[in-house]
């Protein structure tokens, strides 16, 4: 068993990405991972805080890092935005000693201390590197043969921290899809932006970006798109109807979290994967893979 401090983030804990949080916990056990939720974590601050006040944003993120440091475990989050923010805070505290000194003061005022020893990791990278494709393959008792999946990396996973995958042409999700027995379709826009948080203040800009992504996946024969980020999933899923009415298109692409696909292949009970939380229903596309496990009532 491998142990990790788990940071679900606001979205995956009870918000728009709740299916991601639930399916993460559902696959952790079968993969031999114990995800221990970080006690009383706070919001990482994300882009809005970092774009408003640097010291406040860093101090807010540092509270989480300080709490995580007490566990002695790697801090793992399924959310690409939390990953970027917490990992970025870690880097900035190393890069700017004067900011670090002020952050230390802020934490000290709240009787906390952060030495800089936490490693912040994305859930996908942890499953890919620590568990590994060989183990996943050996545990994939229900391979997803015939399912055509577009691998969607989003922008944060491979771009904000060099080293894990190629930032221009990432391959890791493609490999995972193939390992699960499914087919990874060519997806030229696999690392392009969904608009992220801009979907709230600038919805028209985001809808244009979402449309391009849906078009790229659909025109390459994808039956569904798999993501590693709750913002990507929400934008592509919840706003798909709005894209269709704005651009007179007829996209009907279910957007799944990689943990949901992984869970199906591992033979996890489909109900535990929260598939019904997708707004664009994945029922028809996944029927061949969910039927056997769910006997007719």
């Amino acid at each position: 068993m491998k142990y990790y401090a788990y940071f679900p983030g606001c979205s995956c804990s009870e918000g728009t990405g709740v299916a991601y949080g639930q399916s993460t916990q559902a696959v952790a056990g079968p993969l031999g991972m114990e995800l221990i939720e970080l006690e009383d974590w706070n919001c990482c601050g994300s882009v809005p805080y970092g774009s408003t006040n640097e010291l406040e944003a860093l101090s807010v993120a540092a509270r989480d890092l300080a709490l995580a440091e007490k566990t002695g475990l790697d801090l793992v989050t399924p959310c690409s935005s939390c990953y970027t923010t917490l990992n970025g805070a870690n880097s900035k505290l190393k890069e700017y000693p004067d900011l670090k000194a002020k952050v230390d003061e802020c934490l000290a005022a709240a009787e906390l201390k952060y030495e800089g020893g936490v490693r912040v990791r994305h859930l996908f990278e942890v499953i890919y590197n620590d568990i590994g494709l060989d183990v996943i393959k050996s545990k994939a008792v229900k391979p997803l043969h015939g399912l055509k999946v577009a691998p969607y990396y989003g922008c944060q996973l491979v771009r904000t921290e060099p080293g894990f995958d190629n930032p221009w042409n990432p391959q890791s999700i493609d490999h995972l899809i193939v390992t699960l027995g499914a087919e990874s379709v060519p997806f030229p826009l696999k690392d392009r932006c969904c608009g992220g948080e801009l979907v709230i203040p600038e919805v028209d800009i985001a809808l244009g970006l979402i449309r391009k992504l849906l078009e790229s996946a659909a025109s390459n024969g994808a039956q569904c798109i798999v993501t590693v980020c709750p913002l990507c999933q929400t934008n592509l899923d919840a706003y798909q109807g709005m894209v269709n009415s704005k651009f007179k298109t007829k996209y009907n692409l279910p957007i799944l979290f990689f943990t949901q696909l992984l869970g199906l292949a591992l033979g996890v009970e489909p109900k535990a994967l929260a598939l019904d939380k997708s707004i664009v229903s994945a029922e028809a596309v996944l029927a061949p893979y969910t039927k056997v496990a769910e006997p007719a009532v």
Partner: protein
Amino acid sequence: MGTKAHLMVKTGKKPNETTHYLDPVSELEAMPEVESIEPAAPTPFPDEISSTPGGETVRWCAQCGTCSSSCPNVAQMDYSPRRTIAMIRAGRRYDVLTSNTMWICASCYLCTVRCPRGVKITELMHALERVATSHGLTLGRTAAAMHRVFIDSIKKYGRVHELGMMMRFYLSTIPTGKINPLATIKMLPIALKLRSHGRMALKPTKIKGSEQLKTIVEKARALGGAR
């Protein structure tokens, strides 16, 4: 930066009258006097940006334009990322800080990973947002309004309550006229769909350490000011 312009204003001549006839030597001699007249001249804009965390790399830019051609939102920007950098270096503070460029940056980092000079353009955009905020230049910027309600939620609960944050954002935009109320109503089905699929908590969750977080934020405000 701006010293020559100040000089021209002080001599009471129009810029194009002075540029041709002013003796370079006397111009140089006049400079200390100008500085002594205006000792509180603001930090030159390029220095202001390059001394802001995230803005240091602005001087490395070779103006190749790879960032602009990579940007998914460049078509909607007042100035492209490349041009923004050129304008920062030309000292055009007001034009840069009142542009929409950094506010519609999606923070996707494609420019950053592609830049052959290692300019951290995404971080620069965030730095520009912070500098514009500290100068009070966010009027009508919907992203800034969204940032405010997002941060308010963190300060109040320690977490972001998505439903409350979105509702407060849309309500806050109505008086500005920046977003049409009808367009806001169009967002309602999205919220309802998310709610009916169990993806929108009605009530916020407050962390146990909300007072602790408040202490941290207040201390940061006391130490760091507005930026």
